[in-house]
């Protein structure tokens, strides 16, 4: 806003927020409007079914407010144990595999043929969501937590290797250079010049991934990969909303605990 003197007949107008050209603004806004009309128009909602569902919604909210931890406690317990063990195993194995791949995908320390292969592995692992990969692994390994473990390990690779590789590419080169100047070989450069620089962030990312893996372990059970998601799915199929409410509360609590725990440890490390 320039300091224009208040001239009669001229008022300050607020500049438009996003699109400066008036024509384009109108075109885009009306396009959005047309889309919204079409999209809402193509919705098919069976209001009778929705109305009938309200009674269920009531029961569900009741189940959430007065959750039933006891009746199916053995199944809830087993689902939780499966989820937690799946998370731990998948995170450990996933990290163990993604560290070499991450190193191989970093531009500054890996030769290009290795880098292309590693970047391709990362791209494949990141392309699909956990649940799609879980469907394939359940078909291959059969139902149960082992398929979930493989799924989570696989998706951990895409996440962790990519971030690790990006991190290695951003290190302070002078430290690696200094190590190289002492006559260090490739392994020694990685060990003394690169690793100390990326280690705090690697630990932070691993904890973050542990947290994500637990969340995902609650979901992939829906397609048969074991864990608390399978228990939740069973409870919903039985219309056992009290147990479902209990499971949801447990998931929320554990996710919150994992998030606070991992963010505290991350702060403490960095």
């Amino acid at each position, binding site marked *: 806003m320039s300091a224009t003197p208040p001239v009669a007949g001229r008022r300050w107008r607020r500049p438009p927020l996003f699109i400066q050209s008036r024509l384009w603004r109108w075109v885009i806004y009306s396009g959005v409007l047309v889309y919204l009309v079409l999209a809402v128009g193509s919705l098919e909602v069976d209001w009778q079914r929705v109305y009938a569902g309200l009674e269920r919604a009531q029961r*569900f909210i009741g189940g959430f407010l007065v959750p039933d931890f006891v009746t199916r406690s053995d199944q809830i317990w087993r689902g939780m144990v499966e989820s937690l063990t799946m998370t731990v195993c998948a995170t450990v194995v996933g990290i163990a595999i993604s560290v070499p791949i991450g190193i191989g995908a970093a531009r500054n320390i890996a030769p290009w043929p290795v880098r292309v292969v590693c970047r391709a592995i990362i791209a494949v692992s990141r392309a699909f969501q956990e649940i799609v990969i879980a469907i394939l692994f359940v078909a291959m390994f059969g139902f149960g937590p082992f398929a979930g473990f493989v799924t989570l390990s696989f998706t951990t690779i895409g996440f962790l290797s990519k971030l690790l590789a990006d991190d290695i590419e951003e290190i302070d080169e002078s430290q690696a250079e200094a190590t190289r100047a002492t006559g260090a070989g490739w392994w020694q450069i990685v060990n003394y010049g690169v690793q100390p620089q990326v280690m705090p962030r690697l630990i932070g990312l691993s904890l973050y991934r542990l947290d994500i893996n637990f969340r995902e372990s609650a979901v992939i059970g829906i397609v048969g990969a074991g864990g608390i998601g399978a228990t939740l799915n069973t409870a*919903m199929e039985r219309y056992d909303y009290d147990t479902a409410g209990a499971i949801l509360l447990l998931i929320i609590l554990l996710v919150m605990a994992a998030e606070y725990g991992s963010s505290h440890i991350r702060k403490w490390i960095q």
Partner: protein
Amino acid sequence: MPVTQTPSGPVWTRRTTTEQWASWAGWLAVAVLFVISWQVMNTNTIWSFVDDAPRQAGDLLSRSWPPRWSYVGNLWLPLWDTLNMATLGTLIGTILAVPTAFFAARNTTPSVAILRPVALFVIVASRSINSLIWALLLVAILGPGILAGIIAIALRSIGFIGKLLYEAIEEIDESQVEAIRATGAGGWQVLDYGIVPQVLPAFAGITVFRWDINIRESTILGLVGAGGIGLQLQSSLNVLAWSQVTVIFALILVTVIVSEWVSGKVRTAII
């Protein structure tokens, strides 16, 4: 980095003895935890199925190739539903997330004692439950269909948009707010001229980012009955029509890549 003096000269090691022990103890703890988890996890694993996996994978591959490309004709309408689910869900989620974020931000909340904790709880609860689980619940309540998907996406988006937006609000430059207030502006005017313009670019970026994630998530909501392309995926899986599944996966991949590209473009244009 410690240096110990020995008769034959100084010896450099990377860590002190205590650090060395702590590091070993840490690794040992992780290893023990892993071994225990592995044993517990695999109590019911049938290893013959696992050994059989490579053969199963080969079998799967031979069934899913070549893809039945003619099936793609059945997928355009579900794809349209999927896009609508993501977009309308993002829209509703945004509308609900904005007031939540303003209630949750320390500098704009009307009451620190009551509304702020409530808003924060809403954000945490929405964030910790995946949209697929939201969809599972809503399909039971509202019946199968795209409406359940829209609401599931919206409920999940509240937490994401709310959290990032309230952090952006808390990080604004207070001096601009002060300047607007000094002109004698009321509460709403301060919000409109002092706070909103500062968070608007962040808000637009967050929303587009979430829309992109929502496209990704809405492709699979149909697995629990919430409509869209996932419903076709579910029915193809149920009849083991893997050559159709390949087509669906390919279409999902293309959709996700396109939406990622669009959201990237829009975000760089805004910010």
